[in-house]
């Protein structure tokens, strides 16, 4: 290798410390997550607490845990009309291997158009609004994380925003979203699921890149469930369009 070879000799992490067994350097007898021992975490804390720990390095307060728990429920099921769920259901009923179903859904969910990639964009847009002095929604363009679904406000996300904003851990980002929702609703623009996730991440101190993966993780249960349900059904239980319903507009 040349003198420009700048790669480290070993991998490193601040998240996990594994304690090797006395008689086997490859076998771990203990695992610590940001200093907390795994079994002790199991005894004393919830899954949500440990998820927060993994993403931020610290355990949440009760209020933060409540906000994250409610966000988990809010996002846990995108529903059977969401493109990611439909991708999973399509793969499942056409007999894709079951272990591929969740990855398929998460990949489709990863898109830039109201997908996981858009959460980071919304995170940044909200952060930019928050750092402005005397922010006035009327003087700003519609920020990322807001928009239309089927030519109007997403009414379910509006309800979820109202619920999450009412919690003690709701901070500047969720309050900003309420302000933006109030301003933009007359123009039929509203909070999107990606904006909701971004706002909660900001208020919870969860980073921009981490917000992408958290959105995928929180959307995963519904993808998984809808996919697995379809695996039990015959391939003929879903539509396959006839030629009449397939319009090929051929360029000359």
């Amino acid at each position, binding site marked *: 290798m040349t003198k420009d070879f700048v790669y480290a000799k070993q991998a490193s992490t601040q*998240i996990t*410390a594994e304690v090797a067994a006395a008689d086997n350097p490859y076998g771990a007898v203990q695992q610590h997550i940001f200093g*907390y021992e795994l079994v002790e*975490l199991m005894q004393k804390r919830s899954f949500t607490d440990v998820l927060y720990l993994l993403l931020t*390095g610290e355990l949440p307060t*009760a209020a933060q845990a409540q906000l994250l728990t409610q966000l988990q429920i809010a996002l846990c099921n995108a529903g059977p009309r969401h493109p990611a769920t439909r991708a999973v259901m399509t793969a499942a009923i056409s007999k894709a291997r079951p272990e591929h179903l969740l990855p398929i859904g998460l990949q489709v969910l990863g898109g830039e158009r109201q997908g996981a990639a858009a959460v980071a964009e919304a995170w940044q847009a909200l952060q930019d609004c928050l750092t402005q002095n005397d922010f006035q929604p009327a003087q700003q363009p519609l920020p990322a994380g807001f928009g239309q679904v089927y*030519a109007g406000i997403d009414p379910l996300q509006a309800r979820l925003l109202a619920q999450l904003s009412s919690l003690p851990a709701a901070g500047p980002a969720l309050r900003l979203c309420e302000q933006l929702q109030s301003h933009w609703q007359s123009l039929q623009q509203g909070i999107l699921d990606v904006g909701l996730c971004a706002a909660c991440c900001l208020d919870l101190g969860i980073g921009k890149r981490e917000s992408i993966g958290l959105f995928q993780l929180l959307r995963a249960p519904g993808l998984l469930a809808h996919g697995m349900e379809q695996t039990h059904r015959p391939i003929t239980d879903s*539509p396959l369009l006839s030629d009449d319903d*397939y319009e090929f507009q*051929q360029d000359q």
Partner: protein
Amino acid sequence: MNSNKTNKYALWDARRGRIVTKIGKWVGGDDVQIRQYSLLHDLFMQKSYMQVLVLNATGRLISAELACWLENNFMVMSYPDARIWCNQVGAFAGQMQTSPSAATAAGCLAADSRAYGGSLTSRLAMQFIQRAVQQIQAGMTLEELVSSVPLRHGKPAIIGFARPVSRHDERIEPHRNMTTALGFADGPHLTLANQLSDYLLATYGMGINIGGYTAAFMSDQGFTPDDVYRIKNLCVASGVTACYIDQLQQPQHSFLALQCQDVRYDGIAPRPVPEREL
């Protein structure tokens, strides 16, 4: 529902249970249309797989020479060497005995990277070289162009002009020869890329790499950055599959085996878990 609402939802109403497309159509038992071509009568046994791949990705039916260029370009984007990041993903998939599709798809996803891989990097490199040609044509000098780029490790961070592992790119000379042998002349993008390479080599000891060369060549061929991102999205697949196969029957955990102490822990020392707040 009033007429306003009907209009508001007209697009979606027209697409309920209906697909509208320009890419093609399967006519069961007869033929398949790909854009304006019959797959079985215009393409099958007459065009190469690479020509059809580019047709599907961009709508352009490219020449046999350009398809040959691209096929050979794909060939050198996919080394069977598990030190390369995407291939390492394939090797880990082999260790886990995943399906070959999972392994190869995972490796291709890994190579959808802004650091290497030939798909996203092609898009980024094409964006740079296409913008650079415009800037030079508008009067900017080569020195000004380079100094407008941020530095990384003391060198200009120009995608396409330094590899993650900083070594001479063995693929450039064969590509130059292939370009000439297939009858392609250097256009404005490749001409500038070569000038830039000479300048960067003399000034910073870093020359053009295969990503930069491909970006300039494909720009000269009239492709957009998005076109090439779509054409090359699976270009590392073959090497990933090779590394997956290599590890499938190897003993468990034997690929780059790690003891607990081999991953350096930089974090917080052990601490007691506090009880939950009530």
